[in-house]
């Protein structure tokens, strides 16, 4: 736990076993005077939260063996928080699954360990044994092969091995163009393929979760959340996130216009390349060799929100895998990438 430098209020949340003790003792709403028409007015965050919880409950009610993809990032943290709310006071009705590449940031592994230690959490970690045997890594094999073998193949292996028929993911429609066409509950063939031309219509709050053996669903409770919504919610709910999201002095090198953090000794330095210390943070987290940092002074959630409101670059710009080929995300998704 000591490895996770989480801001003080956040840390309490991370360690707490259930709901925040500060808000459980007093009812959130005081009864309005008799006959008064004063009703709570829901903010967009309240509405998004309600929509996500509704979806989580629907999928769990109809799936035989659901699982939540836990990628350790901020979206996963929010999704896990929403899931706890959806099934409170009951326990989480599904395990978490981390499809690991062994190339995540050290701070992410620390966070994963902390979450796995929380009561009521069952965390499954899957590492593609073939990728391990072949020593697949982003430096030798390139981001494309690395992502395909570790993540896309790894995910399929894990889902099949455990027989999961519905997997929650933290993807948002504002992240990337092809995500905008994804349903909240998205059908996958027995081969885990996504067919964008043949999606089930999704009306009202009705989800068709019927399937045959071997077929499965991906469900995205955060579909209608934006990056800003996620941060505002993290602030409001005091949700713990990996400290890499907050600005700090970190050793980085500049490669192809991206600031890459030298997170461990496996990172081969080019001749003459010397890591420099810069105050940076990450908007999105993945494999450290493939994730670009941004210069930032934002050390708190509030500062991140302020910085974002003035920000002019989109979130996935720091993700090298999306730039690999035009339409790469669409292709990856069709092949079964989350």
């Amino acid at each position: 736990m000591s490895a996770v430098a989480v801001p003080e209020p956040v840390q309490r949340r991370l360690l707490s076993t259930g709901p925040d003790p500060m808000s459980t003792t007093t009812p959130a709403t005081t009864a309005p005077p008799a006959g008064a028409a004063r009703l709570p007015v829901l903010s967009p965050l309240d509405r998004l939260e309600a929509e996500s919880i509704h979806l989580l409950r629907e999928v769990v009610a109809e799936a035989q063996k659901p699982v939540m993809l836990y990628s350790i990032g901020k979206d996963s943290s929010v999704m896990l928080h929403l899931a706890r709310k959806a099934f409170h006071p009951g326990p989480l009705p599904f395990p978490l699954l981390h499809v690991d590449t062994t190339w995540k940031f050290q701070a992410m592994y620390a966070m994963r360990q902390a979450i796995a230690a929380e009561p009521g959490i069952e965390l499954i970690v899957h590492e593609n044994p073939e990728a391990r045997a072949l020593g697949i890594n982003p430096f030798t094999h390139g981001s494309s092969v690395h992502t395909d073998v570790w993540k896309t193949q790894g995910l399929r292996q894990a889902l099949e091995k455990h027989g999961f028929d519905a997997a929650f993911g933290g993807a948002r429609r504002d992240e990337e163009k092809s995500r905008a066409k994804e349903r909240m509950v998205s059908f996958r063939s027995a081969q885990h393929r996504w067919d964008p031309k043949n999606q089930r219509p999704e009306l009202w709050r009705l989800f068709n979760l019927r399937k045959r053996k071997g077929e499965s669903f991906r469900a995205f409770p955060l579909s209608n959340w934006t990056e800003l919504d996620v941060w505002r919610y993290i602030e409001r709910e005091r949700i713990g996130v990996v400290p890499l999201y907050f600005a700090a002095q970190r050793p980085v090198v500049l490669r192809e216009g991206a600031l890459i953090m030298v997170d461990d000794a496996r990172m081969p330095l080019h001749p003459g390349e010397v890591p420099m210390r810069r105050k940076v943070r990450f908007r999105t987290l993945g494999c450290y060799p493939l994730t670009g940092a941004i210069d930032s002074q934002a050390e708190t959630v509030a500062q991140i929100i302020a910085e974002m409101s003035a920000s002019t670059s989109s979130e996935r710009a720091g993700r090298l895998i999306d730039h690999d080929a035009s339409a790469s995300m669409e292709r990856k998704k069709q092949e079964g990438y989350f």
Partner: protein
Amino acid sequence: MKSGKAIDGPPAGSAEDGGTLLRFITCGSVEDGKSTLLGRLLYDADVLSDDQLAALEADSKQTGTRNGDLDYALLLDGLAAEREQAITIDVAYRLFSTARRKFIAADTPGHEQYTRNMVTGASTADLAVVLVDARKGLLPQTRRHTTIVAMLGVRHVVLAVTKMDLVDYEEATFRAIERDYRAFAQRVGIGAVVAIPLSGVHGDNVRRPLGNTPWYDGPTLLDHLERVELEDGRATRPFRMPVQSVNRPHPDFRGVAGTVASGVVRPGDRVMIQPSGRDTRVTRIVTQDGDLACAVPPQAVTLTFADDVDAGRGDVVCAHDAPVHTADQFEATLVWMHEAPMLRGRSYLMKLGPRQATATIAPLKYKVHVDTLEHLASDSLRMNEIGVCELALDRPIAFEPYAVNRDLGGFILIDRLTNETVGAGMLHFALRRADNLHWQALDIDKRARAAQKGQRPCVVWFTGLSGAGKSTIANLVEKKLHALGRHTVLLDGDNVRHGLNRDLGFTAADRVENIRRIAEVSKLMVDAGLIVLTAFISPFRSERRMARALLEADEFIEVHVDTPLAVAEARDAKGLYAKARRGDLPNFTGIDSPYEAPEQPEIRIDTTVMSPEAAAEHIVECLCRRPGG
């Protein structure tokens, strides 16, 4: 989700939480400049990032249709497949926010699947932007969009008259379109229309007036979207909450989880659980953030009750003094969404909120011509067609008319075999006869009748190609059973078509109805305690499955009389194959109409290796081996 926010927290609409939330849909085709207008809206609303703008500039040069000038439409064309073919495939959702509001825009493309996509987008929309090209005026498609918007209950409409630059910003042109449109909108029941003259390419009245339409003093598009008042009447209606699941983590806690669909609930409120009609009181509104003093739509909560009432997924918790009604027969508007057409008499799975039922579609009352609103006579619905029909369910459900409550009146239909969502519908009202028709609880039941006959009733359902030998074998089986003292009846294809089903032909729809009637008659006879033998081609899996579903688990014995087509055709006892081959007998199974072989029949008879006598012997043996058979 602390609902106390309204009291202690920042007031709704503050920038801190992104203001309020507006879901809207844009209706129009590529030719109307829809993508350009929506792209321009995003551009002018300052919600694009530097790299999105850089990509837009690069894409405009590479694939744009505007000679290198910014092609705003490119912001919206998401999939590579679409960019290459310059079409849009499906519903896309764009999220953006300004200081005043968060927006979720459903962008639906034109082309053939338009109706299906638009219905999907409109199902969650508060507002619709209907585009009209200033040069073309109202087109059939404008009326179609407006009809669908009205049908789906979208209350606010913006008439966006685009390409005003191409008609020199003439006021007369705009006013004429506005007048025509208002007249039509009124006909379909849309009151609130705001008409705005626009140019997506130049940006007139998207965010700012730009001075080309001095005669227009209304709001700009963005202005209107940011300020339109969203009266949400749901909270003032009686309380309703469909139950999604029962939360029972330990013996001391039992709650029902759901999303409030309308009204307000407070601890102490007297509520009724429908359709069972049990009543109780709400004791707590449980959330992880602490118990609430009240909950409103669309909050997701967990309720606990004073009594240990039976409430499960699909039930509706509602106000005791104004409960929802329950019924099993309805009139509804139906939108067909699948390539396989709707067939009268076929049963589909119906999903309404968390409730599932089996729905059988009674004959269509009429089809709606969406461009003209004319009512047309029709037997079935093809993809993208809209009709009004009656539905019969296999069980009563709690509901409200769609016009009152989208959550309790909107439903989807699912094909039982393919699991595809094939249609969507909106309930109008319950048919009165459902209210009045109560099942007579009879003292003499199936068990009593069967006991008297000393047998276990069942249906032995023979299926197979024409000429496979179904009738021959069924006849032999009946003789043997009769000899064993069993009480039987044989329903044969040809005989039934001379009487009960003489009004039916051989189209797919009629075949479905044919089998539906046979299945219902068989069920009645099983209730009478008989062993029923049916010999029909019954080519579709879906109908055989429907017949199976009418009966109890072990009462349906499917016998596949399996004869290769070539063998059956060579026999051709009735000369039918020859006729069909000549084209004199259309829709003949195996020739120009499909036969869907059973995947797991209880009994399979391979007639190429087994004589009719041996087959009959085998079937009787199987029947006698059943417990109590």
